[in-house]
């Protein structure tokens, strides 16, 4: 089995583990609940993507589009509950309108990487993450700050990787190089999931044990 598959499986196992941990340590905090929904959504879509790609051997890029839109909606709600800024709703609405227009105009985009869509949604999410960093400077115990670090680092790298996805496919570059890009993405995803686990271990592990 190639290394890339190992990396993808590791990231996925970590994601499933985190989803279970967060579900067990369920908190009434709105941001926590939204993040848990995001983890569940990620688990389902990424499992489907792996199933389609590795077992059915079909193109799973339309699942990628669904994942990116779902991720944008859920993380926007997540940051709205952390930042309490109504502008996040407005920006989210506008972006979704732009994406809908793009996919209606060119439905074949569903089966390709959409660099503009990916860039807009991820840059917005990165901006929210930076604003949350700034806001939490003043807070004594900011909620899910390590998760925020994970989202921030993963998104800044994956934006570049996904946005250059079409470029990599369009030109006939050596397999080694685009394999390297996907490995980089998989490694960043593992880092993201490790940070999510660290957050759980640090702030929610004991609380969930006490409940047991």
């Amino acid at each position, binding site marked *: 089995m190639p290394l890339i598959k190992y990396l993808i499986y590791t990231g996925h196992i970590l994601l499933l583990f985190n989803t279970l941990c967060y579900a067990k340590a369920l908190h009434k905090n709105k941001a926590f609940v939204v993040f848990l929904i995001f983890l569940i959504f990620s688990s389902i879509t990424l499992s489907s993507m792996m199933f389609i790609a590795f077992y059915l051997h079909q193109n799973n890029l339309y699942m990628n589009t669904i994942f990116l839109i779902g991720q944008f909606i859920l993380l926007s709600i997540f940051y709205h509950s952390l930042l309490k800024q109504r502008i996040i709703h407005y920006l989210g609405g506008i972006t979704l309108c732009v994406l809908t227009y793009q996919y209606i105009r060119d439905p074949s985009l569903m089966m390709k990487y959409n660099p503009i869509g990916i860039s807009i949604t991820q840059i917005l999410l990165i901006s929210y993450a930076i604003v949350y*960093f700034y806001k939490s*400077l*003043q807070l004594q115990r900011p909620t899910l700050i390590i998760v925020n670090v994970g989202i921030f680092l993963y998104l800044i790298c994956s934006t570049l990787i996904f946005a250059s996805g079409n470029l990599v496919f369009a030109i006939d570059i050596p397999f080694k190089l685009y394999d390297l890009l996907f490995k980089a993405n998989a490694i960043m995803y593992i880092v993201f999931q490790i940070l999510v686990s660290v957050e759980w271990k640090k702030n929610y592990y004991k609380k969930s044990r006490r409940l047991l």
Partner: protein
Amino acid sequence: MEKELLQEESQVAMIVLIAILVVLLMGIALVLFFFLSRKKIIQTALEKTNLELSYQKELLHATIQTQEKERKRIAQDLHDAISAKLTVISLTTNVLIDRTPPDFEDANDMLCHILEVTTQTLDSSRTLAHNLLPPILENFGLVAAVEEVCDAFINSQQVAITYKTVYNGYLSKEEELHLFRIIQELLNNSVRHGKATYIALDIMEDQEQLYVAYVDNGKGFDTTNTAVKKGIGLKNIETRVAILQGTFSFYSQLSEGFQCTIYINKQPQHTHEKKLHSISYG
């Protein structure tokens, strides 16, 4: 040709990889910067809170010390001026009762003595009560009380005082008492410790604040010497100004006299909050 194209394309991919690496490094730098700034901000806030806490403790300590000193003084006054004289009265009365048959002339002398001591005791108790809470402040307000205390110092021939009071009764009775005590303390300090021969006192009021300016030509003191500061009751003044939610600043140098200013802001919430304070301190 094909080889060149391939090389060009792999260069593009390399650029993408490098860009990802650079962005990642920048991201990590930003995260590190955030965590370090956060640490510093929290540390500064903690230091500030500790400083405030220690200042509050110091104030509390000074208040308790002043209270104890005042109790000691009252006890001493009661013992010296009243108890001692009452003992004399009691003894003389006993002698009068025991002497049978009474010698009229002797008895008359004794009764005169009792009357004299009783009058002295009455005076002493009146002075004591007056010192505890000047009736003039209660009945005629701050301006009259300040005038009285200044006149008392002027009459002692030890010091010349020029004073000006522009005050329209903005403060509550309890707050006026605090301000009066501050002025009393300042005058006492100037005469007792500073050996001042001239004092200028201004109490002014405008629409925004109440302002007290005080200057003397006494010995002055070294403001860096904390023992001196505590000894002359500046802490006591600070405590009272804090209760009035005002600001107190002073300047002094050895042989350059002493000067201080007190500002009390007139804010809408001022009266209510201060009333709460005055209940606990009053």
